């Protein structure tokens, strides 16, 4: 009982202290740019719980989900192909390294040229940024499949789709999940940035409009919401990861425990 209490205290202690400090430090604030935390929270409730949730937040999240899913599918598929073939890898590596190094937001003007200003542009921007971590990590993961396991599969004549699923994907999955996690944080960033240009709805768009209209408490509330979104998505990812990689975590724990 006390162990659990101590653990929760450790988890909530510092954040609670920081929030309290923020509250009291800003409570008497007359600085227009740093309103009291109480006003920010009031603005949070007024701004985001209402039509805005449906009109702005939901479309943004939907675009993120679609873009992320497409990036995962294309990245894993392409990564499987590239990772299994050394000549292909050697051929494409410099090109991929170069394309990967281009900061994704820089591609927004280019994508705007091609895809206009609607939903397609935003989804494409998200895909173009999320693709690279997934692709490159998949290639790494497929490359590093254990030789012994691969030989065993060959001896037992395990081939084709079965081999793909049980050997390659399974062995590469820790690496793929790492890539997926990086892709998620990039995806959130791109979701916001794609809406800062030529948008008429969306989470990033709303926050920027608040900034332009000098609606400071509402803007702070938007920043808070974006932060919360990042945290919630990251937690959700952790839950999914624990399910998908349960076998891997157990294996690592056993190895470390035996030390």
């Amino acid at each position, binding site marked *: 009982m006390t162990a659990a209490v101590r653990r929760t205290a450790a988890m909530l202690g510092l954040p609670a202290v920081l929030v309290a400090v923020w509250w009291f430090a800003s409570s008497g604030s007359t600085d*227009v740019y740093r309103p009291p935390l109480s006003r920010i929270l009031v603005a949070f409730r007024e701004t985001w719980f209402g039509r805005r949730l449906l009109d702005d937040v939901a479309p943004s999240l939907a675009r993120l989900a679609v873009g992320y899913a497409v990036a995962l599918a294309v990245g894993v598929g392409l990564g499987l192909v590239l990772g299994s073939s050394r000549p292909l890898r050697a051929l494409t590596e410099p090109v991929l390294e170069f394309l990967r190094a281009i900061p994704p937001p820089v591609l927004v003007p280019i994508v705007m040229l091609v895809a*206009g*200003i609607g939903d397609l542009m935003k989804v494409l921007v998200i895909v173009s940024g999320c693709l690279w971590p997934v692709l490159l990590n998949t290639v790494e993961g497929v490359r590093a499949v254990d030789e012994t396991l691969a030989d065993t599969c060959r001896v037992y004549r395990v081939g084709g789709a079965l081999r793909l699923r049980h050997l390659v994907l399974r062995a590469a999955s820790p690496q793929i999940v790492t890539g997926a996690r990086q892709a998620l944080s990039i995806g959130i960033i791109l979701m916001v940035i794609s809406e800062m*240009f*030529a948008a008429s709805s969306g989470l990033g768009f709303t926050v920027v*409009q608040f900034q*332009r*209209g*000098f609606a400071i408490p509402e803007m702070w509330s938007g920043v808070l919401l974006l932060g919360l979104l990042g945290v919630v998505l990251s937690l959700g990812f952790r839950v999914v990861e624990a399910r998908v990689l349960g076998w891997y975590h157990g294996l690592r724990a056993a190895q470390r425990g035996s030390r």
Partner: protein
Amino acid sequence: MRRQLAALVSFSLTLTGAAACGSSGTPSKPSPGQPDKVAGAVIAIVDVAPVYLGKQKGFFSQRNIDLSLSTSQGGAAIVPAVLNGQVQIGFSNVTSLLLAASKGLPVKMVCNGVASTGVPDKDYSGVVVKAGSPVRTAADLAGKTVAVNTLKNIGDTTVRASVRKAGGDPKAVKFVELAFPDMPAALQAGRVDAIWVVEPFLTAAKAGGGRVVAANYVDTAPNLTVATYFTSAQLAKSNPDLVKRFTEAMTESLRYADAHPDEVRQVLGTYTQIAADVAAKLTLPKWPTDINRQSVQTLADLAVGDGLMDRAPDLSALLP
């Protein structure tokens, strides 16, 4: 290990040295006998030609002001830059300043910036539709999509005023935000039904076959003051002499620019990318020396009516 440490230390020293060479942006205190350094933030558009022309002609240095101008992509960043002292003078449209003042930001207009010509078919701003569009007057814009460069700002407010004046329903107009350079292409591709543009994009849109259906600045108020130069209330209180000298220099620049359009067209090339042949053809705005206070009140009322702000700010505190 020691080599690594030495490398790390020298690396960080180099970096801090490089960073220290960076520009700071805040001007140093004026020493007696030296001209006052004033940093101004403007947008690289036709409207601010007088300040560049005035600087060229020496109107500012005559009054002991060493003026340095920087350009910003949009007005939204100029207000914070003025308020936190990064620059002393900013250029912004009246609606933005009204919004800022209504939210309690201590801005103070000092001098007029630019005004509409007041002539319906010879203004430097207009709403353009594609050739062959069913839209004939501003009233037809109801239910259509109009592109403006900033939402909830002077663009949509004045377009709604045009629609209202022509008898249409202003609330039925859909607005979308696009940067001016992207508008002609979007209009041609049919992504928007109409675009609100200012020079030089107005000339470009007309040359591309577009038709002007509304002169929104003219419809809003006679001789509308579109934008002004402003400073922070803090600077106005702490250094009123500097503000007065700047205002005098700026007024002289405005008068000169209004009287010498050819020199204005020439100076355009020094701070914008506008080609010389385009600069020769475009319609210049007017640069009166006084702010049209009535039009500022009109813009404030429109902003309140359109829901941009709850109530108008105290205009006497805002206007010079």
